[in-house]
Structures are given as C-alpha cells and as structure tokens.
C-alpha cells in the first residue's frame, strides 16, 4: 500500500526547534502564519516586521525577509516598508506589551491610515520576555510581578480591548479576535487570519487579528491550566469574533 502524505511542515516554516516555553502559544501562532503564507502563495514576497518580546526571534523560524523594529514601532516600520515596496506582503507580529502599551500610537495611526498591511496581535495578558510584569491587557485581579496583589481597577485601570478599539477606526478593513486554546478555536483563528491577510493581497487595506494566547510560565500554570484560563477568564472579557469586516465592500482607499 502506498503512503500518502497528508500533513507536512509549510515551506515558510524553517525546520528547527523554537525557544518557547512548553505550552506557549507563540509556536502555534507561528505555524498558522507559515501555513497561510504558503497557502496564499506570498512566502517569497513577504517582508516580516518583528517586534520586541518573546516573539522577536520569529525571523529565525520563518523563511522570509525580515526587519527588526524597536519596541512598539513595528507598525511604523511596516508603513515605511510598504511605502518602499508596495507590491510585497508586509506583516507585523506583536505582543500585548509591544502593541497595546509602548506602541499604542503606532498601531492606532497605521490602522487609521488604512495601511495595506497585516497585523497579528498576540495577547497573553503579560510581558512575557521580561519576566511577567503587568501588561495593558492584564485582567482585573490577575497577579503579576508589578501588580503583586492583583490588578485593580482603581489603581491600574481596566484591561484594554484592542480589537474593539481597532475596529472603531475608519481606516480598518478587517478586525477579529480568536483564541489558541483548543482545536476549534485554532481553526477559527486561522480562518480570521486568512481574511486579514486577504485584505492586503486584494489591496483593500488594514487587516488585524488578536490571538488570545497562553504564557504558562508567567501565569505559573501548567499548559492545560493555561488553556482552561483562556476559556474561563480571558474569553469572557475578550469575546471572540469578527468585529469589523468590510472586505467585500472594497476596502478603504
């Protein structure tokens, strides 16, 4: 009986071990990005802009041209890349500390200009790389190294819902939130990311996908507990779904 290969590593993904902690979802998100670049046939035309945080080494795992941005500035760097190379597929991949804190101005304005780029936003409710400090997305009551007794509304304010903010901006073509905690949600994440990437391929403007993602190390949980936390604590505050989809309306510019 001849064997039929049904599942393989995408061309866009390099065959090497990642540096992520066990149970971290960055690897899952990378895999989806790689699959989509191949499926949409843009791997060789992609310019990736990496951010600061645990994902800074994404360029070591993807077989694409890449440039490293300063903390939070990936959307501005991507704006420059796109201005220089309009025909390339330009992608940023950013954590919550990167995108929702230091880089808040850059993401809002790139989105509002309707830059023809795709943004993957990995929300794990902490600063992972620097050791688990409070992020703008840290949930009320969540303990981190800089809110050791738990984030409190009165002192630290409310966790920021980025997809809701992004979807309110005129320049945005597509904005959605998915989660990476189970197979069903991962499938949905890929579907949403495909649409976000499609915006750019069809030259219809800014595509954004938020991925609720686990950081078992800094949450001090097992990978299974971390998946459960996404379901029971994160999704109720960060609801999943498509918040803006004007892909069929011809985009923004």
């Amino acid at each position: 009986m001849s064997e039929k290969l049904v599942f393989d590593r995408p061309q866009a993904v390099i065959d090497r071990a990642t540096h992520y902690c066990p149970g971290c979802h960055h690897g899952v998100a990378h895999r989806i990005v790689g699959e989509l670049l191949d499926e949409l046939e843009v791997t060789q035309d992609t310019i990736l802009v990496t951010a600061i945080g645990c994902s800074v080494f994404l360029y070591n795992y993807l077989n694409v041209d890449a440039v490293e941005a300063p903390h939070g500035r990936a959307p501005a760097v991507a704006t420059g890349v796109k201005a220089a190379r309009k025909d390339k597929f330009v992608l940023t991949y950013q954590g919550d500390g990167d995108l929702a804190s230091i880089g808040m101005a850059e993401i809002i304005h790139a989105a509002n200009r309707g830059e023809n780029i795709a943004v993957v936003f990995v929300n794990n409710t902490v600063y992972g790389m620097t050791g688990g400090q409070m992020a703008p997305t840290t949930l009320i009551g969540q303990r981190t190294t800089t809110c050791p007794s738990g984030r409190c509304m009165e002192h630290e304010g409310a966790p920021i819902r980025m997809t809701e903010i992004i979807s309110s901006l005129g320049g945005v073509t597509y904005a959605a939130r998915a989660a990476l905690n189970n197979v069903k949600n991962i499938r949905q994440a890929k579907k949403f990311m495909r649409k976000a990437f499609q915006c750019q391929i069809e030259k219809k403007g800014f595509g954004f996908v938020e991925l609720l993602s686990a950081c078992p190390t800094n949450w001090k949980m097992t990978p299974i507990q971390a998946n459960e936390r996404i379901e029971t604590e994160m999704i109720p505050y960060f609801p999943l779904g498509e918040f803006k989809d004007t892909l069929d309306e011809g985009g923004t510019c």
Partner: protein
Amino acid sequence: MSKQTERIFVKGNEAVVRGALAARCKCFFGYPITPQNEIPELMSSELPKAGGEFVQAESEVAAANMLLGAGACGIRAMTSSSSPGISLKQEAISYMAGSNTPAIIVNMNRGGPGLGDIGPAQGDYYQSTRGGGHGDYRLLVLAPATGQEAYDMTIKAFDLAYKYKNPVMILGDAILGQMKEAITPWQPEGIDDEAGREWSLSGAKGREKRLIKSLYLEEGALAGQNKNLQKKYEDMQSYVEYEEFETEDADLVVCAYGSIGRIAKSAVRNLRKQGHKVGLFRPITLYPFPSAALLALAKQGKKFLTIEHNLGQMVDDVRLAIRTVADSDFAPIYPGNLPIPEDIEGPVLEWLEGK
C-alpha cells in the same frame, strides 16, 4: 554632473528638498516642527509627482521608524525635523546605525534645551556627532553653510549613506532653513536606484532570506558587530571636508561651522580690512571631524578661537585635534539670537587685545 544654468531663489529648506529630488529620493516621512516645515510641505506636493511616497507620520518617533523600514528595503529615503523632534528620532537612528541601514536625517537646529525657541542655534552638535541615541555608533554629519551647499550636500548625503550603509545627518539651523538665496541646481548622473540590491529586503524569491536586525545575543556576537561598526567609522575618516579662508598668514584662526561659519567669514573679511591677521577654518563634515587639517595649522604655530551658536561643544573636537601642540579658546553666541558679523568680530578683537 550636469550643470543646470537657470538659478532659482529658494529657502535653505527648499534647497534640501530640491537636492533630495535630484538625488532621486523615493520616500519621505515627516512631522511638522518649525523651522523646517517647508521640507515636508514641499515633499508632500513634489515627491508624488516624482513617483515617490510621502507620509505625514503621527510623531517623529514614527517618522524615523518608517525611515528604518524604507531604508531596510534599500529605497532612497529621508526624514527631516528640528531639535525636539530629532531627540525623538534618536531611538530609530540608533537602530538604523546598529543594523547598517542607510537613511538621511535633516536637522534644522533650533534653540534649546527643551522646547527652547524657534530661533537659530547650534546646540545639537554633541547629539549629532556623539551618537545621540544609545550604544556606540556614529553618523556621518554634514554641515552646509549656504543654500547651494544644502543642495549639493543633500545629493552627496544619499551616496554616502549607501556607500557606508549608515544614516547620514544634514545639520543646518534656522538661519539656513529660513533664509532665501539664489542657488544653481544640477542633476547628478549615474545614480543607481538599486544600489542596495545585494543586501536589502525585497522578498526572498529565488534567493536566501535576508534579515536586517541589531540584536546579537550569542556569545561574542555583539562584540563582533561593534568591531565591524568601528571599522566602518575608521573607513569614514577618509571622507572629510572643510573650508580654509585666509589661514595662510593668519596668527589667529577662527573655527566655526554652518551658518556661523559663513557669518564668521564676513567677520574675517572685515577684520582683514582693518589689518588683523585672522583666518577661518570651517569644518564641513562634523563627523568625521577634519582633525588632521586643523593639526597641520596648529603645527604652524597658529592660535585658535572657536565660535559656536551654543555654549561650547565643537570646541571639544577642536581641542582634541590640536591637543599635542596647541589649545583653543572659546566664545559663545547665545542660542536663539540671530548673529551678525559684528557679533563675531567683537570676541575676536577682544581676543587680539588680550593676547
């Protein structure tokens, strides 16, 4: 180089834009700040006509990072600002220096520190020549004194940025940016629009992927990167420019750069008419600093008086250059004031009387 005979009457800021367009600048990223607003304004109307892209960024931070993105793609790109805005651009400038990315940054220096004023000053000399952002790095710094030099040096800046794969700063001031005078534009020949083809990002079709980064975590890797950068800065030392005026028989050499260098030239002319043996040394590249030429003058036994539109910054480089044989005195022109030749003649005469 082909000469264009028709002269045009333009502000220094416009001369920079005309030079950039002649050098086939293809991307410009700006943010308003006086006294350089004519640069983004003119770019917004002229660059699209030349097939380029203009973006008004949300901040100087973003503009400089856009420049990093375009520079990494090997596209001739530029940003401009004035002092407080240049401070914000330092983050990306350090990253561009660290990742060998060519780019042009124009600073029309205004008075500081802080918000200062919108008048002319040279208070950003240290920031321009010492790095300004974090880490061990240098920019090539060109200091035009006239509209024509602003035009010529902007063209040259693009070639230098590509030659050294390094950010180049054009350091002017509010006098240069705002003053109108006649210039003769010319069109450089033989520009290679694809100059970065061997290293720039364009998608990995038919070749290995490329990475432009400044992070070096492996044991010894950062030391290696810094050694390479240092080697580049040593190579740059061969590129120096300066003007010497009436130095041959001069007892006292005034050291001044940019607009102040130009005003000092008038002062030297006036003082010569009165019989004083004074000359002018005007550095045109501030980094690399024309140390060897200054040292040669010092070895002839000349005395030095550095005059700057700040409280004493370039004087450090003058002293470093001549330290083995001589020293330099210093006279400040306070930032924000608009000096005239008499303001330079005054301290020179005082010095002559005192010696």
